[in-house]
């Protein structure tokens, strides 16, 4: 049996009903699967459907199980493994607070510019940066901000969608 761990981004279309998120999360905790990130929001105009994006890791056999187990939940309409199905776009947003004065403060602004982060709040001794990108980009930004007075991080988790004209 392969012990190779893979990271997969899975999109799940569910009925927007009470308890549906608890079912999905309960499935992951009850069966010992990992959740690296999870996002959910209603996605159709009438508010009947929600889309969950979950990033998980596991052996190929476990990933197959996760998809099959998700698919068998009664309120689940579709499960798509974006990682397995081809090219897709992944994005995450972060709000990052950096406090400090002097050269560090200037440097943080300079790096934010390079990353195309926006300062959405500023005082004489702090910035809040808004940054959108891949997980790796946000990780890199956070690492650079660490010595410059990083005090607070808030991340949305990953949202993802397949490239090309096909819809889920």
């Amino acid at each position: 049996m392969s012990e190779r761990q893979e990271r997969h981004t899975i999109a799940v279309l569910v009925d927007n009903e009470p308890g549906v998120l608890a079912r999905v999360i309960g499935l992951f905790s009850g069966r010992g699967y990992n959740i690296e990130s999870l996002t959910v929001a209603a996605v159709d105009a009438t508010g009947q459907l929600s889309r969950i994006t979950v990033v998980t890791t596991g052996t190929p056999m476990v990933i197959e199980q996760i998809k099959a187990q998700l698919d068998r939940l009664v309120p689940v309409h579709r499960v798509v493994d974006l990682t397995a199905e081809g090219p897709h776009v992944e994005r995450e947003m972060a709000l990052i607070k950096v406090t400090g004065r002097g050269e560090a403060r200037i440097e943080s602004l300079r790096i934010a510019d390079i990353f195309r982060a926006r300062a959405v709040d500023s005082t004489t001794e702090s910035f809040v940066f808004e940054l959108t990108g891949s997980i790796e980009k946000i990780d890199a930004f956070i690492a650079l901000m660490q010595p410059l007075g990083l005090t607070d991080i808030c991340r949305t988790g990953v949202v993802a969608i397949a490239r090309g004209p096909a819809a889920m």
Partner: protein
Amino acid sequence: MSESQQHDAERPMSGAEIIVRALIEQGVEVVFGYPGGAVLPIYDALFQQNSIRHILVRQEAGAVHAAEGYARSTGRPGVVLVTSGPGATNAVTGLTDALMDSIPIVCLTGQVATHMIGNDAFQEADTVGITRPCTKHNWLVKSTDDLARVVHEAFYVATHGRPGPVVIDLPKDVCINKGRYQAAGGVAHPSYRPRTKGDPARVAEAVELLAGAKRAIFYAGGGVINSGPQAAELLTELVRATGFPITNTLMGLGAYPASDPQFLGMLGMHGTYEANLAMHNCDVMVAVGARFDDRVTGRLDAFSPNSRKIHIDIDPSSINKNVPVAVPIVGDAGSVLQDMLTLWRQRGSQGDRAALAAWWQQIDGWRNRNCLAYRQDGKVIKPQHAIKRLYELTRARDAYFTTEVGQHQMWAAQYLKFERPNRWMTSGGLGTMGYGLPAAIGVQIAHPEALVVDVAGEASFLMNMQELATARQYRLPVKVFIVNNQWMGMVRQWQELLHGSRYSESYMDSLPDFVKLAESFGAVGLRADSVDQLDAVIAEMIATPNLVIADIRVEQRENCFPMIPSGRAHYEMILGDGASADTPDVTDAGLALV
């Protein structure tokens, strides 16, 4: 829709009336339940009708097990009605049992009024939260107008795809308020559409694989039973057409006639030597409605190492869960077996007859070990002998058997022979002690004229013996056949074999006098202390038209063999005759596997 029905549909009804009407429309004849504050409106509505019979159990776990017995023996969903809070939490064991064994149950639970939910009200529990992991699906109904739709959806979900238990949580005000009825015909579940027809390409691949096999085996489980009696017939036809051997899981007993020479008995931890060795040595395995449970596979990395596996299951998540398979077929067992049989016949293949003969020769060699042999010498009744005689003295009847959990359950699986599906009700996946008596009550309700026997251990029986009062109230002639060794026998066996004979808390001290206990419940109590009394007691038990407890005093230290010790492979079985000399050498990792 007739005019009067149409009129009814428009007339506002109370929520409780809507629920009862929806149950009637779903064809429900029996509800197993226990009243309480939150469900009083529903009990009031039940009181005012004559279509549905209510069976009053004595504890809510008994209600779910009785509904399971009803469901397993009829193929129809079992229905349960319990109150909020403790009523619902007592039902949790039964719901989990039904989930593990894929039994269709619709359980209605009372709930405090909607405006009190979340306020720690009297007898409030977060029932949908508590039962979410132990049901196939559950609903909290917040509006009376939704009631009929949810009840119809619940029956659909419980009985379609892989069957399972569902819970409908019913706040008291929702049951009292007026609302509109909705007929079942107009209800389609928005998203739940399980696949029942197998992929034809995969089915063809499976038939090719089977045709080229030299040492194939069928391994069939509860999915065949759940698919319906026709699936069992199709399985029998296919197995006979191919000539290959078949073994059944604990849940699958009855899916293939046990008297047929191609039947190798049950497989797994306490399965037969020939079934397990045939599984280990086969080159093609056809798993039908079975899920490669750890009690079946033994050590996974040594499980049937040289076979190509075909797996037919209605639940895609059962496939490749424990064991990777070559040909996965998602579909209903009956439908896929029909397709395979048609294709096999079209092909006109006889397979490799010489290889088949050699395979049977090998299997007959294993069979000749006679792994279920036991020695009945002296006066003390051997438990195997008690169950074997029970079988022999009841075989002429179309009897139904339930069991509790433990040694007696495994002996029953070994020595009772089932020719038809739906005659065998046992707690397989969850292993719930106390299952057998209430399950037998459910079976007897469904089959009032039949002989229904709960093969019990004395320890398990004590767990739900309050249901004797239920059996008595409805004049149910259930037979409780207690294989009484005064121990939690399977616990004692494991302690002897794996924990240095340190019998920690497994002795059943202070047992009641079962004969007097029976009499106190208005039942007939019988006892057999020695082997010469056994047949007479069994005969009297069968002949008595009332509730009977037969206390069969058996050898206390008998172990259940064959046995695959935990963490071992199929070929590493301990057989009965070598048991005392051959103490298994089990590693800590094996011990942890249980």
